[in-house]
């Protein structure tokens, strides 16, 4: 299997050339070194050659300019691709700039229901438009460990997002080039599915047959994620093998010779890859199947391991950055583990159930480091769930849907599809029940790169152990021991932190005391809900609670908060609380006296968690940390000035968290307390109604944090406030500029980190 060894050399070269995270590069060099030492001379030469080849190609990629554009252009000619998505009033799609052939994203807010219908019909792959649009950089991660859309797009060589003010059809033409045919077929097929299959069967059909997962319901997807079976909805090697096998059989049945059938399949594979959306796992599976088919006619028989190596080398030679895509990583890692286990470990399985369990455990172990880094949690129930759902989807749903799809061209299939739909809904219900089983999922927290590499070594070691000892128990034992070690050392770490999360326009501050002494969240951010017309409603649109705060807390390994403090009953402070509490409960919720009546609080009350009012004077102490509420001192809630104000000593610094306290409240505070603080959470997002110069002078902060949304409509922070702070020599951090701001401390040491570096 020199091709597989060469892939390791190629990966080491790519990561080295792009200056990837050091522990990962070390891991690859170590593995490569061991292999070099162990393999025969021939393979050794091939590995060394591959290393230099890939180091060169990647370095060329690195040094050539990323994009043909500066980002200042305003006139664009773009062609639409098959990656078209209209969701609510939002068009989000991939386009190709015509002269340069460079891929770009395009987002556009639809102005009316009529325009939505018109574009829905008109926009097809190959549709080419001249548009006026501003180009901007894709969003980068704004909170620690968050999904980074900018690097995600960069991995597929996309660097700009276009936001046109309008798309006028007069400036568009249809390009009927053959190049756009597969994409057009794909869109047509997806439309056919939507029209002929009832939901949710249509989602599954779109996913299993054409690799389109954009329309699935959020609850079901979440259940599948918890069960660790979400992979069956993405087209994988299993699908491609089943489909080619099916087609091969049919071709032979209708009297075509094996040789010719093989040629037909070879021609069909690239077409299928395009029809299925050409995601990394699809390309990988098609390349592997193609390589095996291609060599099947000659006298060399290509082993799966070599086919995997060939697929890796081809894909990374064309685009070395694809190794940074999660889909690519998971697809290759899992296939790698399965291929290397196919000769010994999987041979030992005595029946289908054992085989399926082994495959599922293998996949989980192989994907472990990548899963934890991306999702910070691990599905324990996955092996059992896979045992049930993989056969259901692969052996029943896939052939059935394929058959129904073809039949739909000739006869009405409503009866059959509704039967299948009923069955699917039963399975989804079962998934929902299983997903709610306690301990189905454990939150592990996001490991740092060093820990992830240790996990990777452990998972390779556990495979070797499994192979040698003929017993999975010892490997599972090693891995679970390591995993619990990671979870515990994370929870009881001597490190503490205060993080001002970037929740857009709003506040949310996370406090973690060292050695599991306490985890607090002050406010949750949120948005004012407003009535929307039906056509504008998006499916599972962004929401700060489930998309920012919950994932952040999970990455920190937190499953329960000790305290949730809601400073006052405004949507930008409490709006997302119910959403957060649904996933991560709190032992208690502390609110401002009298503020429990508002609309925004009803969701919190409904969670059934103990809610109590905090008031001036209440204080608590945990080892070196000290907390005390300084306001409000009456029991009547009158808005911003009745924000719960929290004074704290954390990590050797003094802090003042003011909520939306305004000038009047500040004056009251100055009257009652003589404060000298290090860190000030600036009141009311930097509005000029707060942070009066006398107040800033009185509390003498060294650092200040303003939590405000990028280009928010209130114009926060006001320049009066930033001016006051500058005049007093206060070092200012802003979430709209630096993203989340984290103060980390460990004993006497401390450091401040911003998610987006200072410009």
């Amino acid at each position, binding site marked *: *299997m020199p091709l*597989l060894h060469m892939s390791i050399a190629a990966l080491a070269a790519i990561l080295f050339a792009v200056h990837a995270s050091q522990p990962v590069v070390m891991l690859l060099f170590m593995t490569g070194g*061991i292999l070099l030492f162990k*393999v025969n001379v021939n393979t050794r030469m091939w590995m060394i050659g591959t290393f230099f080849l890939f180091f060169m190609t990647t370095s060329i990629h690195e040094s050539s300019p990323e994009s043909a554009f500066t980002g200042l252009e305003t006139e664009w000619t773009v062609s639409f691709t098959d990656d078209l998505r209209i969701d609510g009033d939002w068009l989000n799609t991939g386009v190709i700039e015509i002269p340069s052939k460079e891929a770009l994203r395009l987002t556009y807010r639809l102005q009316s229901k009529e325009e939505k219908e018109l574009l829905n019909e008109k926009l097809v792959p190959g549709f080419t438009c001249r548009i006026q649009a501003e180009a901007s950089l894709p969003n980068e991660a704004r909170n620690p460990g968050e999904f980074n859309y900018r690097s995600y797009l960069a991995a597929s060589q996309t660097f700009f997002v276009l936001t046109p003010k309008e798309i006028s059809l007069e400036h568009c033409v249809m390009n009927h080039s053959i190049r756009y045919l597969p994409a057009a077929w794909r869109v047509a097929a997806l439309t056919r599915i939507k029209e002929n299959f009832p939901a949710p069967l249509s989602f599954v059909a779109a996913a299993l047959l054409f690799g389109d997962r954009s329309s699935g319901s959020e609850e079901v997807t979440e259940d599948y994620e918890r069960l660790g079976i979400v992979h069956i909805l993405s087209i994988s090697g299993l699908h491609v093998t089943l489909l080619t096998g099916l087609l091969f059989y049919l071709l032979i049945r209708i009297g075509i010779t094996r040789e010719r059938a093989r040629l037909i399949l070879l021609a069909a594979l690239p077409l299928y890859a395009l029809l299925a959306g050409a995601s990394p796992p699809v390309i990988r599976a098609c390349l592997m199947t193609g390589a095996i088919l291609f060599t099947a006619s000659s006298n060399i028989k290509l082993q*799966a391991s070599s086919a995997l190596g060939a697929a890796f080398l081809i894909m990374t030679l064309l685009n070395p950055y694809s190794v940074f895509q999660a889909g690519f990583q998971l697809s290759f890692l899992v296939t790698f583990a399965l291929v*290397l286990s196919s000769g010994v470990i999987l041979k030992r399985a005595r029946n289908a159930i054992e085989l399926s369990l082994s495959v599922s455990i293998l996949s989980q172990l192989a994907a472990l480091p990548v899963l934890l880094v991306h999702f910070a949690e691990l599905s324990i129930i996955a092996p059992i769930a896979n045992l049930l759902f993989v056969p259901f989807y692969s052996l029943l749903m896939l052939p059935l849907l394929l058959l129904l799809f073809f039949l739909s061209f000739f006869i009405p299939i409503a009866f059959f599809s509704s039967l299948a739909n009923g069955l699917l809904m039963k399975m989804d219900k079962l998934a929902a029940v299983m997903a709610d089983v306690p301990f189905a999922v454990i939150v592990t927290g996001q490991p740092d790169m060093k820990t992830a590499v240790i996990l990777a070594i452990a998972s390779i070691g556990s495979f*070797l152990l499994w192979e*040698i000892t003929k017993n999975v128990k010892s490997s599972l034992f090693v891995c679970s021991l390591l995993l619990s070690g990671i979870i515990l050392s994370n929870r009881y770490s001597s490190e503490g932190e205060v993080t001002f999360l970037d929740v857009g326009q709003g506040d949310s501050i996370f406090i973690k005391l060292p050695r599991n002494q306490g985890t607090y969240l002050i406010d949750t951010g949120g948005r004012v809900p407003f009535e929307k017309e039906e056509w504008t409603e998006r499916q599972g649109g962004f929401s700060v609670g489930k998309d920012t705060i919950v994932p952040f807390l999970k990455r920190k390994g937190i499953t329960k908060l000790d305290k949730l403090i809601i400073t006052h009953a405004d949507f930008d402070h409490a709006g997302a609380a119910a959403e957060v509490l649904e996933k991560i409960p709190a032992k208690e919720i502390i609110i401002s006296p009298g503020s429990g009546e508002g609309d925004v609080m009803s969701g919190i009350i409904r969670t059934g968690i103990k809610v109590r009012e905090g008031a001036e004077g209440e204080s608590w102490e945990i080892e070196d940390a000290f907390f005390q509420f300084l306001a409000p001192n009456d029991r009547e809630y009158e808005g911003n000035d009745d924000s719960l104000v929290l004074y704290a000593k954390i990590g050797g610094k003094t802090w003042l968290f003011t909520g939306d306290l305004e000038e009047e409240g500040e004056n009251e505070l100055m009257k009652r307390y003589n404060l000298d603080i290090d860190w000030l959470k600036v009141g009311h997002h930097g509005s000029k109604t707060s942070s009066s110069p006398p107040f800033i002078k009185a509390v003498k902060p060294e650092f200040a944090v303003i939590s405000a949304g990028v280009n928010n409509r209130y114009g926060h922070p006001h320049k009066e406030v930033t001016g006051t702070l500058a005049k007093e020599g206060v070092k200012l951090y802003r979430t709209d500029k630096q993203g989340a701001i984290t103060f980390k401390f460990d004993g006497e040491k401390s450091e401040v980190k911003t998610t987006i570096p200072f410009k």
Partner: protein
Amino acid sequence: MSQCLLCENDTAVQSWRGFFGAKAPVLCNICLNQFEKIDGPTCEVCSRPMDQKGICPDCAAWEKNIFISNQSLYHYNEAMKALIARFKYRGDYALAEMFAEDVRAMAKKAACDLVCAVPLPPSRLAERRFNQSEALIEMAGLPHTPLLARHESDKQSKKSRAERIEAEQTFYPIGNAAGKSILVIDDIYTTGATIRLVAEALGQAGAVSVKSITIARSGS
């Protein structure tokens, strides 16, 4: 790519150890499965498969000698017959590799001072171009000490059981093995006549004990 020594199919096993440089087996699984390893109870002296442990009547009948015991790897079934014919008579020297690891392990367990081959008469060596017994020792990576030579004689395999047992000594010592224990490695053990003659000749060279390892154990 590594090919099966018998059928030339690819033998590389897709395994974790294989990925980390473990050598591919020399035979593919299909070919390997034709051969039956000897397991279960055997005669403590000659390795003949038996219903329970003990000493078989043959061995009990042999007169005492410095020969201690023989260990065999495989049953002499049809596939093994064909394999040994291919190895010995048709000169497929490389086949000795498939036994190398087992022979090495067994030799280590036998813990003898010297390893010696069963010599061929000069005319037979000229005919075959190699001594199968030496080939097995060499492939196993063991140091070979030539202690014996052999007069011209009839082929053992052409003789009947009775003729074998009555056979005259054709081996004679050419080296010094004073006070040493000797391990003899050969291809087949049938009646034990050859090995006992070898042991006798080794005794003349001064050896104190002789054990043997053979690839196959023929006879019931």
